[in-house]
């Protein structure tokens, strides 16, 4: 067991309870023993490590519910240890790992293998998703019940749309057996085929093959109808269009158990990033119009969008130093999610606690994790950060094995100083 850890003079932020006070936190063993204004240096148990936060924010460690790591199958792009280190440096203490590894996580043995590999790394907590269908082929259901028993946090075919309506209906219906969550990549596959940027004047000018925004809206609206039929829980990944967000808001108002997330790149960037054929701006779904980006911001502010998730997708140089058509899609983001999201606070007036909730208790609750809270008795997973500090995102600062950040070279505000998992410091900023 590690030494007790006492953090004093912090601004305690707990989005789940709305707590925002000056105070301290004491972790004994793996859990939070005490927190609040009353916690001072005087309370230090013998042998405790004492950290003076000097007014920095202490929040629950972030929960990133959409991460791809290259292990197993693409270890040259990312390994669990490199990805976990990037997460730690980003203040993320729990991440949910998509099942589109090679081989995919579509059986209990594979799930246990990946979970064990992650435990050995001893950094952040890694929770695997399970494939919804065998081999992610979209044909036959995977063993959802057995996978759930083995620890799958939810079911998804990752970046492949569950296109078959009959299959999605059965999956949603069957998953009600154990209140399983199904996560959909919303893109009508035939409308999206051959395309890789948002259809419109810019795509036409560049001569890049477009996908209409309707490809997302159609799939979301269809899925909501199916959900209405079956009951169950559906989560729409990385929504990016105003109309899809509107449809989800309406479905929530009708009482459907639907949730959704948005990525940092869709809340911060629009389609203009593809100018000059920048392959680092090639993502799925594609970056959208400014109007759609603003709808994502509005959806996050009003709560229609429940979660911010990085959609971390490492791609090595050889995959990105290509023509736009041939480059692989995806950007890394687990390390920069917090500072990129902070612009919602500074530029769009979103309250800090609301913003943190979308990256802590909200995803933790969706996935059923004991995480995302500063609460007596909870795991001592926290992040100490300076919300104001400006810094520049550079390739050198990124811990991921792949450096395909859409934000490289940008100035951001919000810097992680220390990340703690189970009462143990796993990351300390160099100059902190």
């Amino acid at each position, binding site marked *: 067991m590690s030494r007790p850890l006492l953090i004093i003079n912090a601004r305690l932020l707990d989005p789940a309870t709305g707590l925002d006070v000056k105070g301290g936190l004491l972790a004994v063993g793996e859990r939070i023993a005490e927190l609040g204004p009353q916690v001072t240096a005087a309370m230090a148990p013998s042998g405790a490590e004492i950290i003076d936060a000097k007014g920095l924010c202490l929040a629950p460690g972030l929960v990133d519910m959409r991460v791809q790591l290259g292990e197993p199958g693409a270890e040259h792009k990312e390994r669990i240890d490199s990805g976990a280190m990037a997460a730690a440096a980003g203040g993320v203490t729990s991440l949910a790992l998509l099942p589109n590894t090679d081989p995919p996580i579509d059986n209990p043995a594979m799930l246990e293998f990946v979970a064990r590999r992650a435990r050995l790394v001893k950094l952040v907590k890694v929770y695997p998703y399970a494939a919804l269908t065998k081999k992610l082929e979209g044909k036959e259901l995977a063993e959802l019940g057995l996978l759930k028993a083995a620890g799958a946090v939810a079911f998804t075919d990752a970046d492949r749309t569950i296109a078959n309506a009959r299959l999605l209906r059965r999956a949603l219906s069957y998953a009600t057996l154990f209140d399983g969550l199904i996560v959909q990549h919303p893109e009508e596959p035939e409308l999206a085929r051959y395309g890789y940027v948002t259809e419109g*004047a810019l795509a*036409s000018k560049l*001569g*890049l093959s477009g996908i209409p925004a309707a490809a997302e809206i159609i799939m979301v609206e269809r899925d909501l109808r199916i959900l209405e039929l079956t009951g169950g829980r559906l989560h729409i990944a990385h929504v990016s269009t105003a109309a899809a967000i509107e449809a989800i808001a309406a479905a929530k108002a009708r009482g459907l158990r639907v949730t959704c997330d948005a990525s940092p790149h869709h809340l911060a960037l629009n389609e203009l990033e593809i100018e000059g054929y920048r392959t680092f701006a090639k993502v799925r779904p594609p970056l959208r119009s400014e109007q759609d980006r603003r709808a994502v911001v509005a959806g996050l502010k009003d709560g229609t969008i429940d979660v911010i998730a990085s959609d971390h997708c490492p791609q090595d140089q050889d995959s990105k130093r290509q023509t736009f058509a*041939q480059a692989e899609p995806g950007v890394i983001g687990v390390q920069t999610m917090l500072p990129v999201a902070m612009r919602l606070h500074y530029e769009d007036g979103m309250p800090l606690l609301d913003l943190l909730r979308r990256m802590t208790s909200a995803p933790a609750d969706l996935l059923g994790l004991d995480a995302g809270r500063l609460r007596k008795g909870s795991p001592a997973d926290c992040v100490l950060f300076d919300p104001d500090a400006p810094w520049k995102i550079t390739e050198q600062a990124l811990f991921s094995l792949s450096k395909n950040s859409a934000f490289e070279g940008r100035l951001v505000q919000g810097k992680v100083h220390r990340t703690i998992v189970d009462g143990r410091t796993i990351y300390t900023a160099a100059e902190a």
Partner: protein
Amino acid sequence: MDVGRGFGGKHLLGIEGLQPFEIAAVLDRADGFVDLNRRNDKKLSILKGLTHINLFFEASTRTQTSFELAGKRLGADVVNMSMANSSMKKGETLIDTAMTLNAMHPDVLVVRHQDSGAVALLARHVRCAVINAGDGTHEHPTQALLDALTIRRRKGRIEGLTVAICGDILHSRVARSNIHLLLAMGARVRIVAPPTLLAAGLEDFGVEVYTDMTRGLAGVDIVMMLRLQVERMQGSFVPSLAEYFHLFGLTYDKLRAARSDALIMHPGPMNRGVEIDGVVADDIDRSAILDQVEMGVAVRMACLDILTESLRGADA
């Protein structure tokens, strides 16, 4: 490194961003080469000692030959690298290709590639001048320049003319380059195509969009037909070639809507009986199609001449 557009930079990657005076300068210089090309002794030595490589990732006979003639007539050493069947074709190694080429010390690269933006990507990694000979569905600047020269010589001007560009706009780099050029030079541009072959957001370019040939051709000075790019078609854009010809193929009947002296153009190679009736194409009074081929060599000579000026220590 400057990958800027046109002649302000060291490359010719597209028409977009070129200033009217830059375009006019190319056309003026090309005019002189037209006369040279009609003489028996066509050989100059202004590119003597320079190496010009044609790097074609997509098979092409006409454009490649046109560039080859242009380089040879100016005295350059011209090498053709056909990449269509090469191991380097797939673009995984496009940057490696650039490195390899650098080691060969070419002075001008003429590049055609199936992917939009590929020529600009290559240009960022080579140390010589690059001419885009067509990249994906993005641009084909020398085609637009040769079209402009053809129009200017036949009509005496470009400004104020109305040009209808007809057919497969969606897959056409020729259309995009021509739209940029014609608008920059003060022409009015109409686009005529079935809705499935229009590109999204075309109105934002500043063109008028028609889906009916007769209406689109009404009163125009120039009818620019495009090749139906059957090889780029993935999915049903039109039900059949016969139906396409019926609705969008250029016939005398449809041509009647245009001005009586309207000029017919086509970038080639033509699909006779698909986008154009063979009889119309062969009409020596109306068709400028062979003029376009002739102007092609002259325009490419002008581009090579301008881009290599600094290498020869001459003033721009």
